[in-house]
């Protein structure tokens, strides 16, 4: 390998793109070369800056509406299409089988998933996904006072790459419920906390609706519903982190 190749491979190394054998070789070279080590650190710093500090360029909601209208996808959140979705979810429910599915009341769960996604999609099309914007949980929690009867648990997951963006109130089953908005890179996660004393705790359940994922779980008399266009793996990671985080 020529020196220039090594320098390029530092980038592949930072990106985790090398196979294990090459990663070991390049890692050793970096350890013995101040120049390569400097390039490694600079590249890491730049990657972090690009990931965390660039202002998001958000899709204008009117563009989304125009595109959906153009191809004939109209108002996916209206009742008729949700009924169609509910039917498809019911099928997913049957196929899903086992574990947590058994403890859910399907009809109610499907309706809730649809309504949660409804809120999420409305928020995506609005100028801002949250009615109040703050990354500080001690600011977000009191904001719910006077808006709903019970403020939700708010946790700080910025360290884990899920920064708190803000909050809003969604209406689900004719009831205003608190919804927290978290970010993940350029993606938005809506997390609605619905009081539900009837059910015990349990593992998370997942649904996939039109390219969106909804992960739900239940703890301490509250049903949590997370909706996002993130992959189901990342959304479940979010759910796990939220559940593990100390109460705030």
């Amino acid at each position: 390998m020529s020196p220039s190749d090594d320098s390029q491979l530092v980038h592949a190394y930072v990106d985790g793109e090398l196979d294990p054998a090459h990663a070991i070789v390049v890692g050793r070279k970096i350890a013995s070369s101040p120049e390569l080590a400097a390039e490694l650190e600079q590249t890491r710093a730049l990657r972090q800056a690009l990931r965390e500090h660039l202002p998001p360029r958000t899709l204008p909601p009117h563009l989304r509406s125009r595109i959906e209208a153009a191809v004939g996808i109209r108002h996916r959140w209206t009742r008729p299409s949700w009924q169609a979705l509910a039917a498809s979810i019911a099928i997913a429910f049957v196929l899903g089988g086992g574990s947590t599915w058994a403890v859910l009341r399907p009809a109610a769960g499907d309706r809730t998933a649809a309504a949660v996604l409804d809120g999420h999609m409305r928020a995506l099309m609005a100028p801002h996904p949250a009615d109040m914007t703050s990354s500080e949980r001690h600011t977000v929690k009191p904001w719910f006072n006077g808006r709903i009867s019970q403020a939700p648990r708010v946790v700080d997951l910025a360290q884990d790459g899920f920064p708190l963006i803000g909050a809003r109130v969604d209406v689900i089953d004719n009831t205003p419920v608190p919804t927290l908005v978290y970010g993940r890179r350029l993606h938005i996660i809506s997390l609605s906390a619905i009081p539900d004393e009837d059910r015990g705790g349990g593992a998370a359940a997942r649904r996939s609706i039109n390219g969106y994922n909804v992960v739900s779980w239940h703890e301490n008399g509250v049903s949590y519903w997370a909706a996002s266009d993130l992959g189901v793996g990342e959304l479940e990671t979010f759910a796990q982190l939220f559940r593990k985080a100390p109460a705030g």
Partner: protein
Amino acid sequence: MGVGLSDEEDRKQFAGIVVPHLSEAFVVASWLTGNRTDAEDVVQEACLRAFRAISSFAGVNARAWVLTIVRHTAYSWLAKNRPSEIVAVEDFPGEERLTEQCIGGWSATVTSTPETALLAKLDVRRLEAAIAALPLAFREVLILRDVQGLEYREIAEVTTLPVGTVMSRLARARRRIIGALRTTEE
């Protein structure tokens, strides 16, 4: 834009394959064209193309498929509206192999700067300007990797470049940004 009569199945496919990636399509288009208004045109046109071609989607990687179409559309748009942006690869000396000269100049400055200075004094507007100033061939690779988080393999798919070229362009793009940030700092 009007698509005319469309198959219900195509609509469902579009909703499942393209719509979830619209936000990403817009980010990539805005970095390739340089502004939001042009990005809207590109995304809209790309969606039309995607919709027409929806039945040809092979069902493997929807995200890469959508971004490939967006990139194609952006290139067509640039060729028509800003042909000077499209620069042939031959115009970048040392594109496929990094020269000693390039590395030498880089190393001399790298070792003299504390590693964290770049981030500590980061000015976001300068960072954006540095990205915007990159030649398109470098900019697209940087955006796909460091903003959108695609793997090299996926970037190769979207840009139809060999993986080795993706790697070398990415390395050069990053160095140019770091170099630009350092220059404007002084």
